[in-house]
């Protein structure tokens, strides 16, 4: 007989992890399809539509294709690091999902056990996220270096410089939110937004701006996709990668996108809360899902908001050209960092005044 303790501390978290990993992997796979669909819509062309109805099975076909591709390691590459690098990138990307509150306002009752809709509510969740998200860059640097090839090395150097530069405003921009909510717990921040009767994107509009821009830069997406700028560096750090290793890099990139979008949702757009969560009259916004279970509307709103943030990601990709290396650095150091520091100072001052 398995003891109550083992179930509570081991089996339930493990199940949560597996469920969220599964859902996230599926979401990542379908994110690629969504991206292609939305870009195609913006660019007046057809998206994949041959595999399954409206191309809905395309991600699966892509996955099978990548699995079956020959796994090439270049002769001159450092075999161990070359294999390790994609893994080092993908692990932090998924780990970050651990502290994201996908829904809230209640718990599931499964076989008499309380199951939260998030994996963990760490009291330093935000700091944890920051730490984890910085780790992904090691994989990129390692991969570029271990390939022992020129274009990947240039890509790795670029990404090292870029991610280090944007790590700073990325960190500064969330301090404002922490000061307003008085907590670094992701769940706590959402609850604070409910109590404040306002989502933090209004008081923290600069914080949101800096955070989102740095987030795009952190995840190497256009207009900041310098490490893999295909027009210049062929494919940047993953030029030499094929098959599943390449897929791991892509997986990490899309997971990071989803993570950043989730953080934006949580910090600035009230996480799982519906619009005006304290106004009873707007209860219809829960779409009746709360009658089935109080946690369900949270999922709906969280997914909707995250998707909208991801849409902005794709929108950027469809609109902007790519920054140049030096311009990117200038934007980071001259604009993003001062702006985020200003934001911290002003927010701190206002919070201090209001408390008095």
């Amino acid at each position, binding site marked *: 007989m398995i003891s109550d303790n083992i179930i509570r501390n081991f089996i339930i978290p493990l199940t949560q992890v597996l469920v969220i990993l599964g859902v996230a992997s599926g979401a990542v796979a379908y994110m690629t399809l969504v991206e292609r669909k939305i870009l195609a819509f913006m660019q007046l062309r057809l998206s994949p539509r041959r595999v399954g109805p409206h191309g809905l099975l395309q991600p699966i076909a892509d996955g099978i294709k990548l699995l079956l591709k020959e796994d090439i390691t270049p002769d001159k590459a450092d075999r161990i690091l070359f294999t390790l690098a994609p893994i080092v990138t993908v692990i932090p990307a998924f780990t970050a999902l651990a502290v994201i509150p996908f829904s809230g306002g209640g718990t599931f009752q499964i076989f008499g056990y309380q199951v939260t809709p998030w994996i963990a509510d760490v009291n330093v969740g935000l700091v944890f996220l920051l730490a984890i998200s910085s780790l992904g860059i090691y994989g990129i640097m390692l991969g570029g270096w271990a390939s022992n090839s020129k274009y990947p090395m240039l890509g790795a150097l670029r990404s090292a410089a870029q991610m280090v530069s944007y790590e700073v405003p990325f960190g500064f921009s969330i301090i404002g939110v922490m000061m307003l909510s008085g907590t670094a717990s992701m769940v706590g921040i959402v609850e604070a937004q409910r109590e404040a009767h306002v989502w933090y994107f209004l008081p923290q509009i600069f914080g949101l701006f800096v955070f989102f821009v740095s987030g795009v830069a952190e995840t190497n997406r256009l207009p900041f996709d*310098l490490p893999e700028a295909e027009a210049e560096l062929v494919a940047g750090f993953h030029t030499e990668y094929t098959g599943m290793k390449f897929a791991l890099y892509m997986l990490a990139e899309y997971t990071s996108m989803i993570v950043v979008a989730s953080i934006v949702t949580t910090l600035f757009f009230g996480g799982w809360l519906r619009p005006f969560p304290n106004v009873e009259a707007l209860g219809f916004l829960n779409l009746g899902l709360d009658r089935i279970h109080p946690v369900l509307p949270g999922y709906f709103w969280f997914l909707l908001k995250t998707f909208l943030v991801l849409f902005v990601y794709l929108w950027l990709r469809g609109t902007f*050209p790519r920054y140049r290396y030096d311009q990117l650095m200038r934007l980071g150091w001259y604009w993003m960092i001062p702006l985020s520091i200003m934001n911290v100072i002003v927010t701190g001052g206002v919070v201090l005044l209001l408390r008095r």
Partner: protein
Amino acid sequence: MFRTEMMDINMGPQHPSTHGVLRLKLLLDGETVTDTDVLIGYLHRGVEKLCESKNYHMIEPYTDRLDYVAAMYENLGYVETVEKLMGITVPERAEYIRVITAELQRIASHLVWLGTHALDIGAMTVFFYCFREREILLDLFEAFCGARLTYNAYRIGGLPWDVPPGWTDRVRHFVKIFPGRQQEYDTLLTKNRIWLGRTKGVGILKAGDAIDFGVSGPCLRAAGVSYDVRKAHPYSVYDRFLFDIPTGENCDTYDRYLVRMEEMRQSLRIVQQALDGLPAGEVMGKVPKRIKPPVGEVYHTVEGPRGELGFYIVSQGEDKPYRMRFRSPSFVNLQALPHMVKGSLVADVVAVIGTLDIVLGDVDR
């Protein structure tokens, strides 16, 4: 203990943004380009030599394969050179239709340039917008001569066919809708801060240097030199149309962008005027069945989308040229590349290749 090393990096011949089989050997100091070696010849087919064994009619399809993005101009330049050598007069209607198709070709060629140039710099959507409009033009060309890329559209002495019924209306429709479409590219790029940052002050080619290198076309005009063969040495019926020659001031990639954008508008103006003045009549002049130009030599240039496109023929009175030589603007303009990218970043090299608007078929011949 620590030392820095220059890095030799090979860009091309297989590279996403060298626009074909161009190979550059870059010597990099970090990401700064200190030296560039342009290696060409991967697409060399010996067209000039081939022409010596073909009769004059058979050469025209070969000219299609030189600058395959603007094949109408290769055709136009070639047939006009032979006509000049033989003193053939071309019926007016044929001249007008040549001007219309050639100017539409200029727009189509500039659309390819804009799309690929923007794609190199990372703006993906512009590419698809440009190709949407190019599609309309290619359909027009297909209706006119049956081909979409290598047209072989003209004949020595005129045109093989008149335009099909309703064709001019379709061109008029294009002339009507195109300014609106061009507005869309404008919205995406012209005032875009990232685009400005990537193109302003990049790949500067001053007027003096441009002339020394023999650079022609939009690259020369962006340096402020108002030289256009259509105005300087009018050929065909270009002297009858009103159009401006856009010039730039800052000699950089952004000015070359603006010049080409304006050239598209001016081409549209020419097409409009040519459509309005299109005379009726024959499209084929009086030409002997066997083309046998008199002994002599001739050089003739036309203003292609990439610059001055020259044809030099030495005839010994036979039905084949004794010597054939093309002055291809891509080849000449490409010479300026090492000068333009010296001291800039790798990302700028891509922008400069794009702004030179080379076609490797034209470079290597």
